[in-house]
Structures are given as structure tokens and as C-alpha cells.
């Protein structure tokens, strides 16, 4: 535990501290970027990009070896991975537009074929230069142990750059994500904004290769955004919350990986972010399950209460069990089903409100507030007392209209 705490406080050594900061920056950039592809409902495109980095990594390795250099130079590998991922994204786009195949098929096809080809190349490297490819397999799941100092710096800088780009572009990306057609009419170039978003996805993916590996970088793009969704309905807050969740997961995950043995960095970061997601799903007040359940039950009771009171007022028999329970609960009927005094009063009010709404619909024809009549909003919340008095007067004027 002390190991974990000291790692959290950046006291576990230079390397661990750098990895921690790098992972945090990666998490922030990934969480923020991921929000935009989530809003466009294209989350899994990042899975295609991530898996498609493999052939690029292998080809870059082979090229660097062929030119006599060290095949494992991180920058070279990152460039290679970005190139093949970019090709993959172009192909996904082409297939979705030029053929009748839907986008999810394009994503899956590109993902698996590129990855398969990458595996072929990996085995080629295996036969060519036996043992030397051991470094490449680490890109599948990431490996921060034994990370070189300059590698950590590269990652941290790239993460910061991605974060900066996100800050600069986020307003345009928000507009396009929210309503691309409207954005186009206001002069925002939708296509280039989408390209910029995809470019950011690429940058984040490539950075994440070393830290969490290509299989799991997708998680850092998707999970924080989905978790954030439960907390807010506003896009700017969504991006911020997702970035925070991503950053926290990255930081604490890296610390845990440094402190405990046999804890792979990528896996623990993803699991922490999933934990945050689960908490959000359950308890977030705006869209969380507990809150929704509560609202649903309350709504159902309101519906049954209203219907029950109207039935009581009209003298109709009630058979529905839930309706009877609700009426009993509020003391509107006795245990034997006979209406109490308060019950009859409430029923009469419900009936009168029905009549008032009917009149209101005719007299307030252009009024949007009447459109809000969903059978459950109290009339006192929509009309002032003197307006209600006017409705009552009209009811009184009408002959034999009370429902």
C-alpha cells in the first residue's frame, strides 16, 4: 500500500513518475478525443485504427533494420504505425461510401485483415531475425517496465501536444458532433473537422501503443466518454468529465502498475476506468440507473394515480392492482375500495382539471404551454390563478360539458 501511495505522489523513481504523468496525459487526451467519436456514434472506428497499426509497426521495423538502424526506435515505429492506421481509416471511409456495405462491416473487415496481415509480417520478422522481434510483441499489450527515459519523454510530450490540439479544436468538433448539417450551414468545414478528429484519434492511438498496447488503447478512447455520458447532457461538460476520468484512470493505473508486481499497466488502467464507468452507470444523478429507476417508478405511480382518480370521479370500477394500491397509499380509498372523503375531493379535482384542460386547448390554441399537457403536470404549474378562474367560468358557461 505504501508503494502505491508513494507512486501516486510521484515518489517511486524518475521513470515511474514519467510513466505516470505520460499515462495521465494520454488518458486526458484519449478521454477528450473519444468523446467526439462517441457523439458521432463511431466509437469502434478507433478499434480499426488501433489494430491497423500492427502492419505499419512491422514494416517500419523491417525498413529500419534494412537501413542498418535499430529496428526498435520508438519514433520510427510510431510513424509507421500512424501511416498504416491512416491507410486503414481511409479504406473504412472508402468502403462505407463507395459500396453498399455498412460502416460497421467496413470497420470489422479492415480491422481484422490489417491485423492478420500484421501478424503475418510479425512471423516474417521472426524468421528473418530470430529473437529481435521480441520488442514488437510488447505493442500488443503495452509495456512500461523497462521503458527508456527518452521514450517516456516522447510519450509525455506527444500527450501534451494532443491535449493542446484538443483544446484548440474542441469548439469546432463540438459543433460538428452535435449537428453536422447545422454546422455546415454556419460555414464550418465538416469534412476537415472530421479529418482533424480522426487525426487526433490517430495521435492518441499511436502514443498509447507503448503504454497500454494496441488492443487496449480503444478502451481509453471509449470508456471515459461513455462513463461521462451518465453525468451530463451538455457536450462541453461531457468532454471535460471524460478527460478527467481518462486522466485519473491513467495516473492511478500507472501508479498501481509500478507499485504492485504482475500488474500490467494497460490492463489496470482499463479496469480502473471501467470501475469509474460502473459507478457512473449506477449512481450518476442525471442518467444513472438508480436515478432512472426512481423516476420511472414515480412516473408510473403518477399515471396510475391520475387514472384511478378519474375512474373514482366517473364512478367506474377499478380492476388494476397497481392503481388500487396507489390510491390506497395516498388515502384516497379505504381498504374495501370505497372512496374516502379526501379521495372524493381529489377525484373531483382531477375531473375538473380534465375539463379545464379541454377548455384550455380551445381557448389557448396557439399556446405552447397547452402542448405540455401530458396528463400529469399540475394545472397550477402552467396557468395563473386568474387564468384558471377564467377556464372555470367557461366550463360553467358550457351546458352539460363536464366529462
Amino acid at each position, binding site marked *: 500500500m505504501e508503494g502505491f501511495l508513494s507512486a501516486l505522489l510521484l515518489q517511486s523513481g524518475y521513470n515511474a513518475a514519467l510513466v505516470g504523468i505520460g499515462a495521465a496525459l494520454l488518458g486526458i487526451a484519449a478521454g477528450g478525443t473519444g468523446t467526439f467519436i462517441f457523439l458521432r456514434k463511431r466509437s469502434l472506428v478507433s478499434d480499426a485504427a488501433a489494430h491497423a497499426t500492427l502492419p505499419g509497426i512491422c514494416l517500419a521495423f523491417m525498413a529500419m533494420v534494412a537501413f542498418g538502424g535499430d529496428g526498435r526506435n520508438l519514433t520510427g515505429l510510431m510513424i509507421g504505425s500512424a501511416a498504416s492506421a491512416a491507410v486503414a481509416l481511409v479504406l473504412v471511409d472508402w468502403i462505407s461510401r463507395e*459500396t453498399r456495405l455498412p460502416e460497421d462491416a467496413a470497420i470489422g473487415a479492415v480491422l*481484422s485483415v490489417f491485423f492478420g496481415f500484421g501478424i503475418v509480417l510479425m512471423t516474417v520478422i521472426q524468421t528473418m531475425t530470430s529473437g529481435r522481434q521480441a520488442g514488437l510483441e510488447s505493442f500488443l499489450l503495452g509495456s512500461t517496465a523497462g521503458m527508456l527515459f527518452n521514450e517516456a519523454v516522447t510519450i509525455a510530450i506527444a500527450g501534451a501536444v494532443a491535449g493542446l490540439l484538443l483544446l484548440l479544436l474542441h469548439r469546432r468538433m463540438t459543433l460538428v458532433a452535435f449537428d453536422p448539417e447545422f454546422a455546415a450551414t454556419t460555414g464550418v468545414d465538416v469534412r476537415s473537422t472530421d479529418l482533424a478528429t480522426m487525426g487526433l484519434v490517430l495521435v492518441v492511438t499511436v502514443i498509447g501503443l507503448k503504454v497500454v498496447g494496441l488492443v487496449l488503447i480503444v478502451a481509453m478512447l471509449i470508456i471515459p466518454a461513455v462513463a461521462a455520458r451518465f453525468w451530463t447532457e451538455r457536450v462541453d461538460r461531457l468532454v471535460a468529465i471524460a478527460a478527467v476520468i481518462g486522466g485519473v484512470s491513467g495516473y492511478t493505473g500507472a501508479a498501481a502498475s509500478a507499485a504492485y508486481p504482475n500488474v500490467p499497466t494497460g490492463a489496470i488502467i482499463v479496469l480502473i476506468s471501467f470501475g469509474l464507468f460502473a459507478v457512473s452507470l449506477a449512481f450518476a444523478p442525471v442518467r444513472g440507473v438508480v436515478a*432512472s429507476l426512481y423516476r420511472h417508478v414515480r412516473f408510473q405511480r403518477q399515471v396510475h394515480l391520475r387514472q384511478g382518480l378519474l375512474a373514482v370521479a366517473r364512478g367506474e370500477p377499478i380492476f388494476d392492482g397497481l392503481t388500487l394500491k396507489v390510491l390506497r397509499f395516498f388515502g384516497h380509498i379505504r381498504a374495501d375500495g370505497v372512496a374516502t372523503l379526501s379521495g372524493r375531493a381529489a377525484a373531483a379535482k382531477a375531473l375538473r382539471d380534465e375539463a379545464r384542460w379541454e377548455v384550455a386547448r380551445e381557448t389557448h390554441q396557439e399556446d405552447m404551454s397547452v402542448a405540455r399537457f401530458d396528463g400529469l403536470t399540475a394545472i397550477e404549474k402552467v396557468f395563473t390563478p386568474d387564468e384558471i378562474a377564467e377556464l372555470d367560468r367557461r366550463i360553467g358557461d358550457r351546458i352539460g360539458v363536464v366529462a
Partner: protein
Amino acid sequence: MGADFVQFSLTPMLIGTLAALACALPGNFLLLRRQALIGDAISHVVLPGIVVAFLITGTVAAWPMMLGASLAAIVAVLLIETIKRLGRIDAGAAMGVVFTAMFAGGVLLLEQSDTSSVHLDVEHALYGNLESLIWLEAEGWGSLFDWAALSQMPPQVVRLAVVLGVVAGFIFVFWNALKISTFDEGFALSLGIRARLLGFGLVVVTAIAAVAAFDAVGSIIVIAMFICPPAAARLMTDDLGRQVAWSAAFALASAVFGYVFAGYGPLWFGAAGSVSAAGMIATVSGLILATACLFGPKRKRIGAAREA
């Protein structure tokens, strides 16, 4: 093409072909229902399922692992549905959350447990080891009729044959209902078709195929088999029956040519050794799809693209 072939190439090719077919058949319906990526999700969760089974049973025997993988797949599907409903999250994002988290869980469990005595590494899970499924006890084509030799065949052959039978049977029995509910779910429900249950059944069948094929070609490449042959077939015809037939043909071609290129290709290029058969099968299926995208008779979209 004598004893050598039967010993070293026949069973891997057969297993590869059976796996490809078992995946391509349900893939046709997944494609039409815009559920192509459920194969992606299921393939990723196979790993944690196997790890849990290993931790519980302490062995790497086939049946517990397959059971673990199947249960993991079903858990994943249920979680995905739950997240979609409860959060009103789109399918892709829900899948992304569930399968990455489960995969991460599998990786962590694997690292934490003592697997030094057992060969269970993540890379193998990702891309399999088809080349190793050889039939050393065979002595030639005659061994196909020799009961003793047959019982020494890699068990994946029979396993995949059975799974293929189950998959094909499901599609055959429910052909009409699958067709209608994929085309027009509301109408299907009005006919009394249990469309939701059928959809779940399709996913279960998909999971079974993925789990069985996983052993041969690894989890990630299973996705290629779910998507590429049916997608290529879709671009060849406008008749559902013919599409399924085309997808089977493409799956067969991918498996056979993929294996051959993997084994003999490097030799043709003057290099020694072979490359990953599973990877090559995926690559070949991709090339077939690419050809269909460029030249398939029905490749053009007719109307506007439908929103996801």
C-alpha cells in the same frame, strides 16, 4: 501429396476450413443486421473466459475452456444489451466498453496467476497456432479409414465439424424467421415471431462458432471470418440464399489458399520457414473482399446510406 500431406497439412487445412465456414454462415445475418462487430466483441472476451476456466479447473483441457469462453461470451452480450438499454448508449460504444474491460480483466488475471507450468499466453490466444494441429499418427490417405489413427486426430476436427453442424442447422431451421425479422422487425413481431429471442439465438450461435474457431485461428482473426466472406458475398448477389452460398465458397477459398500461401509462400520467395497461417487466411479473405469491392456485380449502393 502422400503421407507427408496427410500428416502435416490435411488436418490444419480441414480445421481452418471448418472454422471459416462456421463463422461465415452466421456472419451473413450479422452483416445484414448491422451487428458485424459483435464478432469483434465476442472474440475479445474469449480470453477472460478461458483464463477463468483455467483458474477454476487448474487445467488447460478443452471442455472447461470452451465452456468458460462460451459463458464469457454470453455474459458480454448481456452486459452490452444492459448498457445499451440503461444508458441509451449506441451499440458500438457499449460493445467497446464491455469487451475491452473484460479483455483487460483476462490479461490481469493471467499475469497474476501462476501459469509457468502451462502454456497459456496471450499472443497465442490472439492469433492461434493452426500449423501445430498436425496428425502425426497418420500414415497416408489410408489412415482416414483406420479407426486407431482417426482417434488420434486433433480433436479440433470433430469439434469444429459438430459446431458447423449446429450453426448450419440453426440457420436452416430458422431460415424464414431469420429472413423476415432481419428485413422488417416490426412485421416479424406482428406475425408472432419472437424476434428478440431469435436475435439472441443468433448471437449465441455466433459465440459458439467463435469459441470453437478460436482454438484454431485465435480470437482476433475470427472476426475476419465473420465479416469478409459474407461482405464479399453481399457484393456478388441480391438473393439471400445465393449470398450465403457465395460466403461459404469465399470462406473455403480463404482457408485453403491462406494455409497454402502461409506454408509454401515463403519458399516461393526463397525464404525458409513459414508464416502465420491464421494471419494469412485473414489476409486472403481481405484480398477477396477487396476484389469484390472493386469488381463485384452488386457492389454499388442503390439509395442513400442508411444511418447506423
